[in-house]
């Protein structure tokens, strides 16, 4: 790929503190490569993250960054984008940060179709705090707070974002970094709310506890369960059981929020000058 990733990473903060085998580093690497390919201006880009393992991502990235309160990455991002719509605003969030405490902000940012790119690190667990189940822990799986199996249903976040009004929805995985780079690049270049769920492995708090194994076994698990969306679409419902579709799942073009807001400003200002 011949990308010099050094200019996108804060060298004094590296190496990162994610656990051995954690997929978050692969997603971070895919993001910087995607950003390089997108041709966007590093100086006009803001990366915002919340709390959790995923929240550390902004600290490692050599952009203007904000590391904010738990679940509120999208609210800060909305503020940044509204204040200066010229900026490229990117949110790095996790399944706990983005789908649990920040789930409300996710659906409302989707609803507004504001031009923000969200990269959600889904490792199916609260990894940093010791392995409590999250809204993305599949039913029946074991966590420290569900020792007899999780009785909750997990979200399908891509469906949630789509039905809430996001205009670009995709799913990538740490086992497929090439596809993930392409997906994130398309998300970055999309005008409107782009939601990208990335499946990453948490060998320490999810894989070993659920008998999947370590990082290498978890990647094998991904290999066995991931299906490209075009193939998934043609499958019967019985065949889809247990499989996860990847790629661009949904993309439409709709009017973007800050454009509409500017239109309101223009209309009001024009009205005032007529008086």
């Amino acid at each position, binding site marked *: 790929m011949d990308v010099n990733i050094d200019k996108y*990473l804060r060298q004094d903060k590296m*190496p990162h503190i994610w656990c051995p*085998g*954690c997929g978050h580093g*692969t997603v*971070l690497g895919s993001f910087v490569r995607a950003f390089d390919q997108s041709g966007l201006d590093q100086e006009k880009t803001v990366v915002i993250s919340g709390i959790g393992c995923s929240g550390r991502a902004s600290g490692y990235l050599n952009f203007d960054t904000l590391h904010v309160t738990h679940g509120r990455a999208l609210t800060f991002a909305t503020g940044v984008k509204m204040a200066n719509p010229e900026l490229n605003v990117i949110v790095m969030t996790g399944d706990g940060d983005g789908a649990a405490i920040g789930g409300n902000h996710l659906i409302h940012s989707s609803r507004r179709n504001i031009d923000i790119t969200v990269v959600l690190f889904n490792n199916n667990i609260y990894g940093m705090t010791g392995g409590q189940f999250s809204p993305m822990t599949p039913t029946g799986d074991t966590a420290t707070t569900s020792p007899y199996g999780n009785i909750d249903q997990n979200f399908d976040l891509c469906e949630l974002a789509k039905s809430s009004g996001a205009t670009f929805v995709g799913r990538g995985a740490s086992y497929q970094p090439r596809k993930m780079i392409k997906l994130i690049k398309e998300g970055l270049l999309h005008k409107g709310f782009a939601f990208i769920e990335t499946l990453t492995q948490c060998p320490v708090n999810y894989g070993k506890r659920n008998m999947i194994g*370590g*990082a*290498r076994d978890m990647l094998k698990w991904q290999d066995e369960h991931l299906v490209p969306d075009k193939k998934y679409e043609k499958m019967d419902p019985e065949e889809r059981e247990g499989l996860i579709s990847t790629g661009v799942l949904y993309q439409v073009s709709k009017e973007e929020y800050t454009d509409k807001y500017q239109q309101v400003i223009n209309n009001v200002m024009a009205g005032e000058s007529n008086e």
Partner: protein
Amino acid sequence: MARKGKVKIARPDWCKVCGICIEVCPVEVLELGNTRIQVAHLENCIGCENCELSCPDFVLKVVEDDE
């Protein structure tokens, strides 16, 4: 996609010996050492960059032969 290059351990100190690179390598170039990954069979390397793109710790890089 570069096909000429060979894998190089660009940042050995960052390696956490997770073994992901071994999992994604199609030709068994790499081997686990005690504290970091080792290139065991460089002659097998086809420069596919799977390890470079998958490594979560940015340890590996595929470089041109003369670098």
